[in-house]
């Protein structure tokens, strides 16, 4: 944190001082007798730098206001109610202030007590001392502007406004642009970029011909982009990006990794949303509060309900129903909402005010209350082997028909479990408060007592779980609903057993601090309000963050390189005006992601070649000024899907059904025997099962997404284990065998076979000496295999394996 000039003492010194008298009749002067103690012993942690617990001894009002703990440090005239006095004089080491070093002397404590008793006189200070908080001036918190495209020197270069922003900065740096990419490079780049798959040889041919036609490459490329955007594979590709950011998984992440058979509905919702170009503000609103939006039909209601799978997807922890750490699941929710949607790291504030960004503990618990008032679905856990609180996807009447025979018993058992859990929470908080002063024997006794209560709650949980397993299954979504609306209390130091001050449900102060209106707060969680605050054109972060994410997945690097952190510790935008211009265009287009793709891809900047220019490398080796297109490695999904596609084995149909996970009645997952099943198929990678605890080695090797946190961008590492994969993995060998068989079956001529192979894998024709090199290789293998009837097949398979190892195959120019 920045050091602010210390102006307050000088201001204070010109003010009239107030004096009081101690019990002994000596006068007490705040500045002479009190302030030095506070400065020397308290201000390090409760001062201008850090305001732990929302107490700042350089800021008078904060000392008399309710602190995060719910107590007041000083209540004028009331020694008993002033927590400052309690905390400096207690014998309990865990509570005593200051926490490190020697306690205050008796004389100092006495002086503070006298001061409080005498009404805690403290000279009023002028408001002049309120400085602008430097973090609030941070660029990302300023309103989005609509800058005019700048003038450029070479007017013949730009194709549109976007190019002008890039060109202007590049010209200022004295760099010249790379030449435009050729049509073959472009179609490979764009097809992978929008669909995650290679173009077919026919598509390449047709595009090259269209680019050569009188209407030219401009029109041909714009048409290509439109075609690609209209394919189902577009939503599968860009849905996968969204899944990276929302840490999508088909399991819950608790220590038995319970499967979520319904998760696929949310995955398919995402893919459909991209394909339908659902406006992004609507997309966010549905995921945060789709269940609270009006719906005309059951279908619409279901779709919007399924969208809240986003919140339901928050990670689960632990194994016990009686100590289920909901606060961690809510933290995971807030963390992801912050990073993915707003580029903010909010969850630091769970335990303390954010060290670098203007996000306070009160901000955190203002949002926390919204999610604590939300009922998350329960995926099951080691000691509660069934799902609970999922949302039905059939009409209320149909639901009632199935559930009615069980309703009474369900309600009874649920109420009993809730009652016992509430009692445990209450007791745990009491114990936490009393423990500091208790002897070891007393502590042991209290804990034993709590353990017995917890065990009883566990029993009630088991009874309920057993009962729930008897109810016939109905179609459900892993989605959220509103729970009991309430404001949350601060967890002191992040510990739920130490409740502090209550915070009304509201948005982050730095983004406006809007409160959930009282009449809404009484009847609803406030999620819909939160969704509106986030998905708002007025929110300075939301539009900037998503246009930057889309840019980042096209160019490999965001305009803001730290694409999930727009805070003060994140990177500065390389092209701040362009970022704002894009965000404004995006909002004006009705938050259309497809339109954003068109805007970006039809620019000249996107269509530059990746050719290097020696002079540019010296001053901008990392291409921050976008003078060329940055080459990128295919990611894990692209490699697998391509190999399946070229061998004719890719199943293009979506996974529209749940995986064949055993029915809940058979679940016995524990941390000793966690859920580990997999249901591999030949569909696209986006449809393969994702587990939180057992990530596939293949995905680990090729920088796959981490299903536990927001993965901002994929790594592009180069490792020997990747090379070994291409050399020896049976998957690669089997695909190569298939493709070789196809070549031998469909074509008679060796040269044609080589040409086909190049077209499929590299999207181009071989140059003559490449053809001869290939044929020599085929011949060499044939010779080595001699009389083996499979010699030809092996030779061509060997050639396929070699080509997929090429840099030209795995990198996109």
């Amino acid at each position, binding site marked *: 944190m920045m050091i602010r000039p210390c102006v307050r003492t000088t201001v204070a010194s010109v003010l009239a001082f107030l004096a009081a008298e101690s019990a002994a009749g000596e006068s007490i002067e705040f500045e002479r007798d009190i302030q030095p103690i506070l400065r020397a012993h308290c201000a390090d942690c409760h001062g201008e730098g850090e305001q732990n617990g929302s107490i700042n001894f350089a800021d008078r009002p904060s000392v008399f206001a309710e602190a995060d703990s719910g107590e007041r440090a000083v209540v004028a005239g009331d020694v008993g109610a002033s927590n400052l006095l309690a905390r400096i004089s207690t014998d309990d080491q865990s509570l005593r202030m200051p926490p490190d070093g020697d306690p205050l002397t008796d004389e100092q404590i006495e002086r503070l007590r006298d001061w409080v008793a005498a009404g805690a006189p403290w000279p009023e200070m002028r408001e002049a001392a309120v400085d602008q908080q430097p973090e609030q001036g941070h660029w990302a918190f300023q309103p989005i502007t609509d800058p005019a495209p700048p003038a450029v020197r070479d007017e013949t270069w730009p194709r549109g406004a976007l190019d002008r922003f890039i060109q202007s900065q590049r010209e200022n740096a004295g760099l010249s642009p790379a030449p435009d990419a050729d049509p073959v490079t472009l179609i490979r780049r764009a097809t992978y970029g929008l669909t995650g798959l290679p173009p077919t040889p026919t598509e390449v041919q047709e595009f090259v011909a269209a680019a050569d036609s009188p209407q030219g490459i401009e029109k041909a490329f714009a048409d290509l982009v439109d075609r690609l955007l209209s394919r189902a594979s577009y939503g599968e590709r860009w849905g996968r990006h969204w899944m990276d950011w929302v840490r999508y998984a088909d399991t819950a992440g608790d220590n038995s990794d319970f499967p979520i058979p319904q998760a696929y509905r949310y995955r398919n919702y995402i893919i459909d949303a991209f394909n339908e170009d659902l406006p992004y503000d609507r997309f966010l609103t549905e995921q945060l509060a789709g269940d609270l939006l009006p719906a005309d039909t059951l279908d619409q209601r279901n779709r919007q309900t399924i969208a809240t799978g986003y919140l339901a997807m928050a990670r689960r922890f632990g*194994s016990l129903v009686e100590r289920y750490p909901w606060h961690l699941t809510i933290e995971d929710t807030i963390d992801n909402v912050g990073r993915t949607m707003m580029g903010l790291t909010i969850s630091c504030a769970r335990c303390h005010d954010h060290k670098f960004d203007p996000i306070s503990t009160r901000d955190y618990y203002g949002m926390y209350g919204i999610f604590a008032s939300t009922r998350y679905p329960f995926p099951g856990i080691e000691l509660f082997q069934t799902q609970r609180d999922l949302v039905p996807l059939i009409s209320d009447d149909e639901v009632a028909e199935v559930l009615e025979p069980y309703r009474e018993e369900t309600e009874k058992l649920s109420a009993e479990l809730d009652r016992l859990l509430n009692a445990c929470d209450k007791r745990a908080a009491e114990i936490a408060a009393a423990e500091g002063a208790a002897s070891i024997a007393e502590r042991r006794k209290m804990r034993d007592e709590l353990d017995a209560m917890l065990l009883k709650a566990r029993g009630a949980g088991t009874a309920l779980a057993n009962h729930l397993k008897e109810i016939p299954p109905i179609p459900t979504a892993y989605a959220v609903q509103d729970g009991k609306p309430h404001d949350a209390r601060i967890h002191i130091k992040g510990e739920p057993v130490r409740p502090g001050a209550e915070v009304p449900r509201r948005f982050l102060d730095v983004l406006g601090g809007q409160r959930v209106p009282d009449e809404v707060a009484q009847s609803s969680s406030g999620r819909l309000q939160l969704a509106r605050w986030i998905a708002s054109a007025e929110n300075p972060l939301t539009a900037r963050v998503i246009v930057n994410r889309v840019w980042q997945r096209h160019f490999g690097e965001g305009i803001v390189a730290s694409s999930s952190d727009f805070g003060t510790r994140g990177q500065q935008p390389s092209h701040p005006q362009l970022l704002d211009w894009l965000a404004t265009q995006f909002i004006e287009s009705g938050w259309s992601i497809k339109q954003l793709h068109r805007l970006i891809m039809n620019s000249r900047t996107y269509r530059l070649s990746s050719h290097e220019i020696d002079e540019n490398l010296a001053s901008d080796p990392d291409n921050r000024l976008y003078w060329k297109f940055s080459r990128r490695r295919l990611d894990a999904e692209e490699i697998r899907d391509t190999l399946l596609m070229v061998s004719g084995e890719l199943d293009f149909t979506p996974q529209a059904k749940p995986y064949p996970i055993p029915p809940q009645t058979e679940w016995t997952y524990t941390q000793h025997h966690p859920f580990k099943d997999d249901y591999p198929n030949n569909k696209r990678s986006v449809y393969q099962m994702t587990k939180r605890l057992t990530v596939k080695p293949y995905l680990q090797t090729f920088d796959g997404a981490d299903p536990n946190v927001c993965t901002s961008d994929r790594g592009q590492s180069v490792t020997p284990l990747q090379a070994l994969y291409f*050399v020896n993995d049976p998957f690669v060998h089997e695909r190569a065998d298939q493709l070789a068989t196809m070549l031998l079956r469909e074509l008679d001529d060796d040269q044609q076979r080589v040409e086909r192979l190049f077209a499929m894998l590299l999207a181009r024709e071989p140059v003559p000496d490449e053809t001869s090199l290939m044929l020599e290789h085929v011949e060499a293998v044939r010779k080595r295999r001699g009389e083996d009837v499979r010699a030809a097949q*092996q030779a061509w398979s060997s050639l396929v394996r070699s080509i997929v190892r*090429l840099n030209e195959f*795995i990198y996109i120019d």
Partner: protein
Amino acid sequence: MPNPLPNRRALIRSLFGGSLLMPGLLSELLASDNPVAPRSPHWKPPAKSVIFIYATGGVSHIDTFDPKPTGKGRDGTGNDKLMGNLFGSQRNKKCGTEVSNIFPHLRGVMDDICVIRSMQASHFDHSEATLGMHTGSPTFARPSMGSWISYGLGTFNQNLPSFIVIAPHLPYGGTQVYASDFLPAVHQGTRVLPGDDPIANLRPPGISDGLQDLEFDLVDSLNRRHHEARPHDTALAARIKSYETAFQMQQAAPEVFDTSAEPEHVRRLYGLDRKTKGAGADFGWQCLVARRLVERGVRFVELIDTGSRPNWDSHGEMQEHADLAYNVDQPTAGLITDLKQRGMLDDTIVLWATEFGRTPTREGKNGRGHHRDCFSVWVAGGGFKPGHVHGATDEIGKYTVEDPVEVHDLHATLLHQLGMDHERLTFRHAGRDFRLTDVHGRIIHDILS
């Protein structure tokens, strides 16, 4: 000045992890890229490699390295459920450290070992405490200790991964225990399985065998031609190099995992001549391979003895401890003896840990529950104080009464012995500098010689 692309840093780091570059050169390459740059050691360290032995399930401290005598409870009847060490104990004659009778071989080498009896677990349940021990964080996904050390120091051998995990089964927490998480992928643990195929993809499958040389030549010539037109792209060069490394790994790795050439007396030292069955049966092989890996310059080797079931989690029957101890005791002691005889113990840290201890009271018929308030771990070699006992628990092994040690303290001390300041080994991720020790950790100087 524009910001450098993370890609380039990641790339240089991936080269580093593959050890194509020596650490000294690397720090030069990256010096301008602080603060994410990996550092050369901050000082000349006593240790350079780590063998981390992880005992899965929660080993009872009371029945192993912190034996408590109350065999039949306080009143001698066993009615109060209090249960002391069930297996008896003796002291090592040289250093006096007392060890249960189910670990006779380890007791014999206790004068090379520093026991910590005052460990505090980060959680009361397996998965969380296992992750806590490996990553410092019982809840949220973080890089494993081995990944941090690989990231900080690189490795010596070009043809083997820097962080190798020999695990017949996955422990609690699954692959997260050895994941690199936000650190570059090259620092993740490479899992090795006992058997014919220790590392995936070391051998060509089936009939395609015998063609590799032709394929390597073709690929190499085409890749070089491709690179000539793009001479400044270091990723392309690195990938060409990665095929050479992969080719060498195919030769080098099988040799490391093949212990048949070890002389008979060495195999006996690790107990490979014994018949073992059940969980931990391959542990002798694991220990011997660990030595061979460190000998060949691998930075961090982790041995996981058992999986999430069956293991040391003896809720119902403590006899399971004795059976498991039989499988692992002699190999573990053999490893220490072997390292010492070869002069490798001085600069190799052998850390033995589990996720938590077990309760002093009986559970079920003859078992013990999870216990987080105190448990035992031990360290040998690498400048740790031999024949030493640190910390103490009360008379029944329920609470720590002396020198409590948190997991973060253990991590900080380990890094210290490898020449790294745990507060300076950081990685910028999602807006802040992450550390293995988060915001905690203090070096336990009392256990260093």
